């Protein structure tokens, strides 16, 4: 029986928190804003059909950090959602979704700090409702204001490496470039820019937005991203819980592959079976 090369060569022993799962992730910690995570998957909570599915998805994904939002009380999900997230033991990352100016985003972050009791913020400042693309000028302005106000700022940004560098220089705790527009599922449209951005900054890079399926998440990690943030790809999948597990494994697989070092691309084939001793038949 062929066992050697196919058998897992890493210990399956559990280590660290339960949410770290069986893959020894504790040996590869993800440090963000001074906090250490074993999961490299950040999950958005929007778009799920029920709180029961939310809990299953959070648990299947292994995530330790989930995004949440603030809305008028009449439209808000309420305390039951907060109870589910509290039960799952995840850290909360409030967003500023829907804000189109630095002023709106800063105020929303300050309100979120009141409501959620955290100074972490996923900073979103979008240019318009149709593309939901970041407004670079307002984004940098808001980031500077929030850093000065003591926030741990995680900005959703374009895949522009220079803007990413400006955000990191402004004191952001990470840079979160889009792969493609929010909810589009178009994957990573400019992998080269993501790799360039990874080179440009020393803070974590979190691929945020555009992920459609597991291979997109794996690619993000292979490009050198430190984590992946996704919502719609899981919450709007036909089977959200199954997709959550797929994303978890894709992020882990992509991270391992990045560390393992991919082979160079070649124009022509290169045999893996030695030509030495080839019989003359």
């Amino acid at each position, binding site marked *: 029986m062929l066992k050697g090369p196919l058998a897992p060569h890493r210990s399956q022993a559990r280590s660290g928190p339960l949410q770290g799962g069986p893959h020894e992730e504790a040996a590869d910690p993800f440090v963000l804003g001074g906090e250490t995570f074993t999961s490299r998957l950040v999950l958005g909570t929007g778009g*799920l059909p029920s709180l029961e599915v939310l809990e299953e998805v959070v648990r299947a994904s292994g995530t330790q950090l989930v*995004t949440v*939002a*603030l809305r*008028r009380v*009449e439209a808000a999900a309420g305390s039951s959602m907060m109870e589910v997230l509290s039960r799952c033991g995840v850290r909360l990352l409030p967003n500023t979704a829907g804000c189109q100016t630095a002023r709106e985003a800063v105020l929303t972050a300050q309100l979120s700090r*009141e409501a959620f*009791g955290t100074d972490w913020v996923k900073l979103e400042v979008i240019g318009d409702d149709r593309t939901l693309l970041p407004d670079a000028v307002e984004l940098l302005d808001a980031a500077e204001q929030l850093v000065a106000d003591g926030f741990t700022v995680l900005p959703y940004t374009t895949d522009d490496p220079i803007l990413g560098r400006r955000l990191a220089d402004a004191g952001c705790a990470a840079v979160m470039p889009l792969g493609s527009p929010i909810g589009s599922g178009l994957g990573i449209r400019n992998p080269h820019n993501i790799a360039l951005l990874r080179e440009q900054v020393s803070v974590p890079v979190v691929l945020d937005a555009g992920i459609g399926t597991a291979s997109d998440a794996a690619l993000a990690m292979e490009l050198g991203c430190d984590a992946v943030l996704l919502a719609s790809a899981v919450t709007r999948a036909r089977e959200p819980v199954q997709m959550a597990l797929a994303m978890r494994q894709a992020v882990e697989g992509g991270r391992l592959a990045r560390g393992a070092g991919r082979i160079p691309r070649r124009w022509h084939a290169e045999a893996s079976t030695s030509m030495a001793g080839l019989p003359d038949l």
Partner: protein
Amino acid sequence: MSIQVTVNGAPTDLTDGATVAVLVAARSGGHDRVAVALNGDVVPRSRWTATELSPGDRLEVLAPTAGG
């Protein structure tokens, strides 16, 4: 004697001297993690009882929800 303010976009009548705390009690709908903006500024929870509302004030009363 009552005053009119705008709460979450809708005109709302409150008794004269009403505070942010009174408004939150009436409008929070069971949410315990509420945040309030008054005329574009945060009102910290510690100041809710001391903050009296004036005619024409614009308030946003917000609570947690799901989001990406």
